[in-house]
């Protein structure tokens, strides 16, 4: 029997921006509920996560091991009404690749977050994570991305890219990269920006006849698209984008 789980607190780095009230309402067992994904050497795996419907708080916790030369991709949209959280702890063997594309979208006073912990345990592994957050109301979007590069994991190439788009005052985003690098021959890039819709682009679009809602949809779609560029399957990419845009349209 595992030890009884305890409720995470905001002192824990990985839960720092989470919604503790929503968490307190959860059954403690939920925190022990991990989905294990083992990708064998030279294999590939592709995981789609959407938290789109329902009023209840949802956590999705993935524990992933990517074998030598293997690839694992995780693409997700969090458009939940209550706290929605996708967490991935990823262990990379030699030459493995981890790809993550995440979208958080929504309003009210809800928190929606991606939390990743990628461990480059062997040399020459690569990881690329792109998260795009678009929020309104009093909503919060978070991307907490920890990357560990162990001492002998030379030629690691890890990248994190976050952009937030706030449609209304009162919404917010947090991007927290945390890099623990113990090897010397590595590339680790991370970038984070936050902004609003480009007013000049909106006006230009209006001047060509696009109603404000259509202009906004096109601009948001373009913004979110970055998170899904690495997703090869067109139909799946469209489906995920539709989940995100449906959330936006419901707001308009």
């Amino acid at each position, binding site marked *: 029997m595992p030890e009884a789980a305890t409720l995470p607190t905001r002192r824990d780095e990985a839960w720092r921006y989470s919604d503790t009230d929503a968490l307190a309402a959860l059954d403690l067992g939920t925190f022990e509920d991990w989905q294990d994904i083992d990708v064998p050497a030279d294999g590939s795996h592709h995981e789609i996560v959407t938290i789109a419907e329902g009023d209840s708080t949802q956590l999705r916790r993935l524990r992933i091991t990517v074998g030598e030369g293997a690839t694992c991709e995780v693409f997700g949209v969090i458009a939940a009404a209550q706290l929605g959280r996708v967490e991935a702890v990823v262990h990379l063997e030699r030459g493995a690749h981890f790809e993550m594309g995440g979208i958080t979208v929504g309003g009210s006073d809800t928190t929606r977050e991606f939390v990743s912990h990628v461990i480059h345990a062997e040399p020459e592994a690569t990881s690329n994570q792109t998260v795009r957050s678009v929020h309104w109301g009093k909503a919060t979007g978070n991307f907490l991305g920890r990357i560990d590069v162990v001492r002998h994991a030379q030629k690691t190439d890890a990248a994190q890219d976050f952009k937030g788009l706030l449609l209304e005052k009162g919404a917010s985003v947090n991007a927290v990269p945390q890099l623990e690098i113990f090897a010397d021959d590595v590339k680790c890039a991370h970038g984070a920006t936050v902004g609003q819709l480009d007013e000049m682009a909106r*006006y230009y*679009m209006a*001047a*060509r006849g696009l*109603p404000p809602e259509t202009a906004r949809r096109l601009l948001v779609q*373009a913004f979110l*698209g970055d998170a899904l560029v690495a997703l090869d399957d067109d139909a799946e990419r469209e489906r995920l984008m539709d989940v995100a845009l449906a959330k936006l349209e419901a707001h308009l």
Partner: protein
Amino acid sequence: MLKIENLTATVADKQILNGLSLEVAAGEIHAIMGPNGAGKSTLSYVLGGRPGYEVTGGSVEFIGQDLLDLEPHERASAGLFLGFQYPVEIPGVSNVQFLRESLNAQRAGRGEEALTGGEFLKLAKEKAGLLGMDMEMLKRNVNVGFSGGEKKRAEMVQMGILDPKFAVLDETDSGLDIDALRVVGEGINAIMRDPAKGVLLITHYQRLLDVVKPDKVSILAAGRIVQTGGPDLALRLEEEGYDAVMAPENANA
């Protein structure tokens, strides 16, 4: 078809248009020339309803309606096209998607049926060809990575596709080399020279007016139209400069 009367407007609480009056009849191409800072771009933005450009007095009648009463996208749908001095880049949105959605939004506003993807592409191809633009350019994101000249050419392709009744073209000739200027000028003629259409052509240079021959030329200075004449007025401006042509009280300090 456009009648501007005693228009005043402020930008950032600064009065820029100072009682501007101007009328353009159907079938006319009316050139506007004037010193830098006179308010030419402000006039085009006010006509296009850009947020932050506040009309404080006067009226604008456009094909029998009160233009100032319409939202910016409704003005487009009513047939107004604004060619931007600085066309805007829209990363992540392709020209094809942008223009198809724009055209169909305008058509919906006029109670017309949407064009299908195929119909739209055929139209886009025809208009791009008119301006010597490759369809590959239209598949790229709106103005992203376009040179100054390509942006102006793309504006004219947009105008061709949207087929407006009236165009306000703000320094469409700036940033163009001689060959591109001819192509763009001929594009304007092909798209807008029509007894039922009108153009307000803002320019600094006679060389565009050699191609797009204006019916009338006005000088805009310090937020007003200070002089209107025929095509010869532009020639005189080119030779003598604004200060010499304008009455002294109208010259910009």
